[in-house]
């Protein structure tokens, strides 16, 4: 077990977007969050790295425990920066900085105070290799990141997230802006990455959840309806509602 949400509720002002969620995120496994638009799956994901703290009027209730040290990520005494140093996030739309490929990957390390050129080069190369991008960019690390294709940009963002050795990697619909070929390469990457990092992924694509994840949680209107092993949830859903959604009758 890597992380655990316990009775987690989340409010945008007075509006309750998440209602008492419980979820276990297993170590070195891929956990997928699925559900129709507006069900709160992205909101849930963004609780893990305290992204909601950036905007006023947001409020958490309940806990997210990160193991093995059992830290409550949502505790007011825990600095959101500390949380973000331990967890990485990849966003829906690739959001590279308008800097070079090298600097994009190196930025997380620079934030952590790394100054040695040698150490930066080693870690950038390792991260780009893990993101299956090294062979494509090794000769043009000083090129602007914007010159990469959409799929490459997203893999660059994954490299940026990996460079800091996160304990948990959050993906927020990472392939929704990509073509099928780029999507396939990202999915392959996710499957490879779980050997070294625990992954939590939001996806609106059920086939994707079935392909890449080990565990799946189905959410609807801010509630967690069903959670289980992906093969079981897709073959024998326990709830009628889950069955309707995964068979495409609704959603």
């Amino acid at each position, binding site marked *: 077990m890597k992380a655990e949400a316990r009775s987690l509720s989340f409010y945008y002002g007075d509006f309750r977007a998440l209602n008492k969620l419980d979820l276990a995120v297993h170590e070195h496994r891929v956990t997928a969050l699925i559900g129709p638009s507006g069900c709160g799956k992205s909101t849930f994901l963004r609780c893990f790295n305290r992204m909601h703290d950036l905007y006023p009027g947001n409020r958490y209730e309940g806990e997210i425990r990160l193991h093995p040290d059992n*830290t409550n990520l949502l505790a007011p005494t825990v600095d959101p920066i500390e949380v973000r*140093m331990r967890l990485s996030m990849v966003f829906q739309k690739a959001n590279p900085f308008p800097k070079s490929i090298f600097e994009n990957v190196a930025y997380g390390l620079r934030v952590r105070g790394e100054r040695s050129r040698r150490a930066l080069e080693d870690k950038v190369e390792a991260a780009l290799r893990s993101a299956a991008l090294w062979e494509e960019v090794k000769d043009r690390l000083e090129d602007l990141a914007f010159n990469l294709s959409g799929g490459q940009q997203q893999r660059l963002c994954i490299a940026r997230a990996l460079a800091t050795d996160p304990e948990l990697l959050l993906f927020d619909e990472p392939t929704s802006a990509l073509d099928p070929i780029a999507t396939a390469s990202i999915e392959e990457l996710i499957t490879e990455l779980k050997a070294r990092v625990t992954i939590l992924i939001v996806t609106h694509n059920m086939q994707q959840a079935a392909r890449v994840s080990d565990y799946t949680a189905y959410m609807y209107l801010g509630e967690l309806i069903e959670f289980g092993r992906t093969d079981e949830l897709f073959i024998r859903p326990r709830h009628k509602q889950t069955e309707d959604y995964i068979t495409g009758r609704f959603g």
Partner: protein
Amino acid sequence: MAYAKDIAEIRALIARHKRRDHFFALLGLAALLVGVLTFTALFVDMAIDGVPRLTWDFLTNFPSRRPERAGILSAWVGSCLVMLVTAFFAVPLGVAAGVYLEEYAPKNWITDIIEINITNLAGVPSIVYGLLALGLFVYQFGLGQSILSAGLTLALLILPVVIVATRESIRSIPQGIREGAYALGGTRWQVCRDHIIPYSSAGILTGVIIGMARAIGETAPVITIGALTFIAFLPPAPLKAEAPFLSFDWVMSPFSVMPIQMFNWTSRPEAAFHQNAAAAGFVLVLMTLAMNALAIYLRYRLRKNIKW
């Protein structure tokens, strides 16, 4: 893995980084206070001197040689009328030029040169506009030392600001909106009229008000074209009892404006006139604040349904 040790290290790192974070927060606050305190000090100082003079009579009296009877009627009416003429010319000209540059003009070196020159115009000293206007509007066009001449001069002065604001605002409209409208078969003019101009109106308005706030305080170009420093009558009324009921005689009338009235009073030796100048300055600042308040309100109204 030794997570506990790592967390301790992370916390030490954050604590170190946070010191700089707090340092910048303090620095930024101090920088902000320099501006805020300076303005507050000026405003309070002026208010202390001027507010006791601020009576209804002060607003409704003409200038006078006796400070206690002198008022700013001709000055504030003049300022308002000049601003009206300025807005009447600067807004359509500036918006049309801005829209043309962004949506119509081919992207080539001629356009680039025009763009650079417009930006540079914003930095030309205002007295230069005054001299240009004296030669062109006052003598060449024979408009005389009138409200119209002054309004046109100040319109030229703020034109670059309006154009730049229009263009910045148009550029912030996502390309997808344009494509959506063109995909339905709209012409360029239809797309501009129905989408580009309405969606950028909040930004345009901000630029217009910033320009107007600058124009209302301008002294040099208005003196150059020959605004009066002592005037004891108002321009003819814009409404008449007989047909056609509207009259534009006022645009050709001699006039004064607030900053000139202030300048005139501060150059007098008597302390009582200095109080009058402070009171006039107070009213001028209130006029500017009122314009900005209007801009904020309109911007809020116009931006309400727009999200990008």
